[in-house]
């Protein structure tokens, strides 16, 4: 194999995963969790329970809705959130191993949160809705995970 062919193959090898990632887009997982002062927690949340406890102050965490969806770049995907809310996610691209995306949490047509984030690939960020940690009426925790293929 001559040198030019080797270089071409190398470039192809490097370009293929990028092309695949661009074509495939990314997978977004949205998990809605009800946080309460009392009660048990779901087993699937046990690995993150301590982290949630430190962040939001509640003791009980239960999954109320979960959705995983393939998203294409620069297209907005809307995820339903319990309580009549929705989460709109628009992945914009990759930057230094992080997924750049716009995230909007809506209550009907009202924007509760409008943010631009860079979420590390396979990383998780949270959105919380509630009045105050430790209150009897509880809180809604939205776990947002993004994974680019």
């Amino acid at each position, binding site marked *: 194999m001559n040198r030019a062919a080797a270089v071409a193959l190398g470039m192809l090898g490097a370009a293929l995963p990028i092309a695949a990632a661009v074509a495939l887009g990314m997978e977004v997982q949205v998990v809605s969790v009800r946080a309460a002062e009392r009660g048990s927690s779901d087993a699937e949340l046990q690995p993150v329970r301590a982290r949630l406890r430190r*962040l939001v102050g509640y003791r009980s965490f239960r999954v109320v809705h979960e959705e995983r969806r393939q998203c294409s770049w620069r297209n907005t995907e809307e995820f339903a959130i319990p309580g009549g809310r929705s989460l709109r996610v628009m992945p914009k691209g990759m930057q230094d191993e992080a997924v750049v995306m716009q995230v909007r949490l809506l209550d009907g047509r009202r924007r*509760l949160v409008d943010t*631009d984030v860079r979420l590390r690939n396979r990383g998780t960020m949270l959105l*919380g809705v509630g009045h*105050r940690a430790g209150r009897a009426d509880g809180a809604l925790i939205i776990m947002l995970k993004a994974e680019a293929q």
Partner: protein
Amino acid sequence: MTCADVERLADAFADAELPAPTMLAVARHAAGCSTCDESVRRLQALQESVAQAVRAETDALDLSGVWPAVAAAADRVDARRSWSRRARALPAALAGALAVAAAAVFWMQGVRPAVESGPAVVVSRTLPNQAYIDRLAGKDLRLRREPRSGTTIIWVNATAGDLGR
């Protein structure tokens, strides 16, 4: 106490500078001696008129500009002392500044620019596995991070709503 003693002590008596027993002795003598009494009264009247004149002159003085001028002068002195202190501490400060500048350069290389600008901008540098918030807009929001894992949460102060289950 004689008239000669009173004449010698009259000025000090008028100024109330004598010891109490001597003041009393002069007063007792003046009470029984019209000449000494007249002499002491004249001195006291003179002292009173001088005091009134001094008070009038003092009241007429405009001191409003004095304290601002004093304060300004004190600030200049403080500034000079501060610069001289800085100059003395220059070798240590220079080393510290170089270290800070080097750290800042390394840090800036790791910080990426915001994707978009918006009305409210919060930029947080996180631990390796979590989120950078480049722009954040909304009402009654709080941004929290859990330092151990670097997890970021955007908290909305609103009713959680009916979550079912």
